[in-house]
């Protein structure tokens, strides 16, 4: 590991100090809003107004989190500056977990299967079909969202889990592309040996290819999960009903329920923390993989 990429002058290197100062500012600008989110969530609404510039929680309180999880009575909630409307982030949290897990699992598995067909099998029209898949990456989301909404509505699937998940369940062109690239660069020796031993493609795919591609598949699954967790437009269109609402939609509803006058800021920030924490935990656990996977192939 060399310490320097560019030849630089030794001694007191002002360029270097300047560079670190800029990085420190960028880090501060990045991190501060998250701390402010936490600080607000742990304050009560009344003290937010009077101590708006205090860096620590104005008066420490769990009230906002209780409100978000529907653990306060209506009177308590209103007294603390909430809207008093029923809100249950446990339900939204469950919906988000279910929605993101199911769509990620389906999308990654089916995309991996397709990638196998594109990278390992020979069949007429293969390259043409692959370029059609690639071309769909160019279609803006809203363009297909309108007809998809109409279809889901006509099938009577509005506000159902099926309507919410189906468009994501079967594939993503990016995932197919990403995994195909990896398979093309992966050695086929083991697969060919297994083939000579009479193994079928199904077995080769599940017992050799998937385990060997575990690292890129895991990275892809993580990126997909984060993307699904943050999805807003489609769930807003087809999943606005309380029972099927995911966190992002729940947040926007919570915001629009603001009482007359000042919004329930501490409640809102507590809710954003609830929505952000699962992703932050995932990132802390597997972050290194994500960070190092972002590059050419990670463009999304």
């Amino acid at each position: 590991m060399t310490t320097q990429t560019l030849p630089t002058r030794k001694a007191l290197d002002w360029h270097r100090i300047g560079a670190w100062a800029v990085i420190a500012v960028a880090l501060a600008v990045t991190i501060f809003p998250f701390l402010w989110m936490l600080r607000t969530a742990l304050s009560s609404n009344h003290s937010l107004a009077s101590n708006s510039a205090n860096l620590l929680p104005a008066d420490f309180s769990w009230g906002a989190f209780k409100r978000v999880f529907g653990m306060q009575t209506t009177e308590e909630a209103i007294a603390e500056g909430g809207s008093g409307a029923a809100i249950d982030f446990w339900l939204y949290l469950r919906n988000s977990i279910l929605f993101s897990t199911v769509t990620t699992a389906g999308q990654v598995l089916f995309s991996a299967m397709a990638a196998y067909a594109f990278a390992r099998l020979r069949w007429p029209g293969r390259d043409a079909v692959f370029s059609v898949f690639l071309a769909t990456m160019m279609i803006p989301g809203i363009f297909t969202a309108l007809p998809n909404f109409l279809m889901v509505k006509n099938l009577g699937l509005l506000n159902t889990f099926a309507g919410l998940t189906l468009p994501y369940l079967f594939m993503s062109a990016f995932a197919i592309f990403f995994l195909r690239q990896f398979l093309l660069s992966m050695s086929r020796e083991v697969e060919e040996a297994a083939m000579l031993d009479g193994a079928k493609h199904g077995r080769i795919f599940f017992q050799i290819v998937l385990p060997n591609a575990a690292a890129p598949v895991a990275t892809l699954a993580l990126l997909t999960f984060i993307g699904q967790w943050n999805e807003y437009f489609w769930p807003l269109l087809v999943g606005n009903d309380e029972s099927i609402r995911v966190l992002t939609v729940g947040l926007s509803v919570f915001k629009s329920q603001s009482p007359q006058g000042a919004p329930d800021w501490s409640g809102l920030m507590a809710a954003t923390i609830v929505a952000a924490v699962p992703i932050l935990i995932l990132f802390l656990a597997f972050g290194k993989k994500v960070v190092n996977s972002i590059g050419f192939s990670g463009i999304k």
Partner: protein
Amino acid sequence: MAKLRDFRIALLFILPALIGLVVFSLVPTIRGIYLSFTEYSILGEPTWIGLDNYTAVFKDDLFWNAMAVTLQYVAINIVFQTVIALGLALLMHRVAKSTFIRGALLLPFLVANVIVALLWFWMLDYQIGIVNEFISWLGLPRVAFFGSEQWAIPTIAFVNVWRHMGYTALLIFAGLQAIPRHVYEVASLDGASPTRTFWSITMPLLRPVLVLVLVVTVIGSFQVFDTVAVTTQGGPVNATRVIQMYIYQKAFGESDFGYASALSVILFVILALVAFVQMKFLKGNESDLD
């Protein structure tokens, strides 16, 4: 015979993805184009009206306003985001390669648009937001970031610069890592200044990555919606009614699916043109490293 068997196996492997492609991408694309030539309010059947939607779009002041607002957003968003990200990437490449720093800069990108929008909506609040507290502490007048026509679009653009700058920096950083070190060594032996090295070596060799980053971020930027939807909802007046917000309101507010489809066809064409022009004129698919 073996070929036919292979074909059947391939079909089996690709079937789920193919169903997804046909049902949720290809058919909707065709249906979307068809709907753009109809009048359709969800109830009843679409009625064919030829090019009427398109001629109406070109006479629609709100459409032109939406385009102007969107372009203003894209310009501010992309210029600042790309310049800041490029700067950060160069700095990281030069002094700070640690995964920790890169991970920290990536944090805003991992959090949903909706969350980022709400967070900044609070921090930029006119009365008690921390940013305005700071501004008034400096002795300057408070700014109605989301509430004034003049500031709303720049504000939304900056919120998304904040969310994307770290991610974009990492993409560019990966491109910098791919530039072979010996090129720099030769430049330094020849006594090239850092400025000269940057313009004659780094930038040309980074160009394919930069173009790719630009194509992806510009296309994403044109489709801004979440941030607007949870903060200004298009207001004040029409100041932030970006094109996707306008499409959404036409379709789901006014049940005018034909008109909304025509708008999204136009958006599609614009995005395809933008991508094409960028690839063509910035020669994104050629490297100077030959």
